[in-house]
C-alpha cells in the first residue's frame, strides 16, 4: 500500500472523548461483571418470571380491594398527599429563608459554599435513613416521616431557589444597593417577587416527588397512608387484586401531579 493513500483519521482523540468512552466502558464492564457476581440465592429466574406475569395479570386485570373500602383507600391517598404537603411546605419555608444566603449574587462566597457542603451531606444520606434516625426520638409515624423527608426537600429546593435568585442578576442587585435599599429590602421586595413564578413551579415539582416519597415512607417507615395499605396488601395479606387496586390509585394521582408539573415547567422554562 502506498503511504499517500492511507486513510486520514477523521476523529482526533480529545480529553472529553476519552473520558466519555472510559465512563461508558467502565459502566458496561461493571454491569456485565455484575451478572456473574450477584448472589441470587439460587432463585429459579424462569419460574419467578412466569409467576410475575401471572401475578401482573391478576393484579391489573382484576383489581379489587378486600381489606379496605373505597373510602378508606381514598382516605389513604389524602393522608399521603397531606404528608407530601407538610414536607414540601416546611422544606419551602426553610429554603426561602436560606436561599438568598446560598445565591451567589446575594451572599458571600464563604456562606454560599458552606451551605452547599451542608446540602451535599444531607443529600448523601437516603431519605429513609433520615426518617429512621428521627424515629429514634419521635417514634415511627408522621413526625419522623415528615421531618426526615424534609431534609432532601430542603436540599433540593435550596438549590432550585438559589439558582432562581441568581437569575435576577448581579446588576439589578447592585443598582438597588446603589439606590440605598438594604439587603432585606432587596431580597423581600425585589428578588423574591420577581422569581415567584419559578419558585412556585419548583415547589410543585418537589411536591410531585414528595408524593412518591410519602408512599415509600408509608410502606417502609410506618407513616401511614396509601403506602402502608400497599405494604399490607403485598407483604401481609399477599392479596394480588388489592395490590393492583392500590397501584392503580397511586398511578392515577401520580399522573395527575405529573401533568400539573409538566405544565408549570413549560410555562416557566425551568430545567431539571
Amino acid at each position, binding site marked *: 500500500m502506498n503511504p499517500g493513500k492511507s486513510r486520514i483519521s477523521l476523529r482526533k482523540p480529545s480529553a472529553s472523548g476519552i473520558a466519555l468512552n472510559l465512563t461508558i466502558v467502565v459502566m458496561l464492564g461493571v*454491569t456485565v461483571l455484575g451478572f456473574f457476581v450477584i448472589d441470587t440465592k439460587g432463585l429459579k429466574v424462569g419460574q419467578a418470571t412466569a409467576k410475575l406475569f401471572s401475578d401482573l395479570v391478576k393484579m391489573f386485570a382484576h383489581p379489587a380491594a378486600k381489606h379496605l373500602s373505597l373510602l378508606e383507600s381514598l382516605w389513604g391517598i389524602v393522608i399521603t398527599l*397531606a404528608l407530601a404537603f*407538610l414536607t414540601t411546605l416546611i422544606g419551602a419555608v426553610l429554603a426561602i429563608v436560606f436561599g438568598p444566603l446560598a445565591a451567589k449574587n446575594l451572599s458571600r462566597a464563604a456562606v454560599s459554599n458552606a451551605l452547599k457542603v451542608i446540602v451535599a451531606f444531607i*443529600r448523601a444520606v437516603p*431519605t429513609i435513613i433520615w426518617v429512621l434516625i428521627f424515629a429514634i426520638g419521635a417514634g415511627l409515624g*408522621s413526625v419522623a416521616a415528615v421531618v426526615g423527608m424534609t431534609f432532601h426537600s430542603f436540599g433540593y429546593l435550596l438549590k432550585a431557589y438559589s439558582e432562581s435568585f441568581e437569575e435576577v442578576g448581579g446588576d439589578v442587585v447592585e443598582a438597588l444597593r446603589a439606590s440605598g435599599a438594604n439587603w432585606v429590602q432587596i431580597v423581600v421586595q425585589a428578588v423574591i417577587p420577581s422569581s415567584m413564578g419559578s419558585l412556585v413551579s419548583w415547589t410543585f415539582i418537589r411536591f410531585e416527588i414528595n408524593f412518591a416519597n410519602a408512599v415509600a415512607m408509608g410502606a417502609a417507615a410506618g407513616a401511614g397512608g396509601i*403506602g402502608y395499605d400497599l405494604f399490607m396488601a403485598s407483604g401481609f395479606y399477599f392479596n394480588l387484586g388489592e395490590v393492583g387496586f392500590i397501584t392503580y390509585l397511586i398511578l392515577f394521582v401520580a399522573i395527575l401531579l405529573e401533568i400539573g408539573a409538566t405544565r408549570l415547567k413549560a410555562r416557566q422554562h425551568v430545567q431539571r
Partner: protein
Amino acid sequence: MIASAEVRRAFRSRNLITLGSLALVLALTAGSSIATEFDWPRSVGSFPKAIGWLADNFVPNGRALRNAPNIALKLAETVLVSVMASVIAGTLAFFMAILGSKTTRPHPLVSIAVRLVASLCRNIPVVAWAMIFLLSFGQNILTGLLSLFISTFGFLTRAFMEMVDETAESSVEALRASGAPWLATVTQSVVPSVMPQVASWLLYMVETNIRDATLVGILTGTGIGFLFDLYYKSLNYSSAAFVVLCIIAVVILIEATSNALRRVIL
C-alpha cells in the same frame, strides 16, 4: 407620595391575592396536620434527640468496626445493583427514546406507545414496583434490581426523548433533506450528538439509585438497606450509624467522580 386611585386599587388586589393564598396554605397545613396526626412541637423536639444520636454513634466503636467487612460487602452489592439497573435501563431507554422522540420516530403511533409505557414505569413509585415484584421474586436481590430498572427506565426514556428533541432536531432535518436513510441519520447524527448527555444522565441515575436501593433493600431484605435495618432493629446503633457513615462516604465519592467526569465530558 401621591398614588393614583388605579395604582392603589392594583396594590389592593395584589394584597388580596397574597392574603388569599396565605389563608389557603394555612388551611391546608391545618388540615394536613390533623389528617396525619402531625405534632408540630414534637417534630421540633425530635431534633435534639436525633442530633444527640448522631453525635453519640457517629464515631465508630470496636463493635461497629468488626462489622466493617460485612458492611463493605453489602455496600458493594448495592452499588453494583445501582450501576446495573442504570446501565440496562439506560440502554433500553435510549432505543425507546429514538422510537418515541418527535424528531426520529418512525411513526406517531409508535411514539404514543413508547410514551405510555414510560409513563406507567415512572409514575408507579419504585416502592410499589418493589411490593409487586416481592410477590414473585421474594426477598431477593433481583427484586431490587428489577424495581430500580423499571423506574429508571421510565424516567430515562422521558429524559432521553426530550434530549433527542433538543439536541438533534436541526441536524436530523438537514440529513433527511439530503436524502440520508433513517438508520444512517440515527447512527451518524443522533447517537454522537447525545452521547455525552447520555453518560451524564447515567452517572446521575447511579447516584439516585444508590439512595433508592437503600430504601428498596429495607423492604426486600437485601443490600445495605437490609443491613442498616438489621442493626437498627436490634438496637445495635453504633453499627447502624457506621453504615450511614459508609453510605455518605460512597455517595459523596461517586458524586465527586461523576461531577469531575461531567466537567470533562460536557
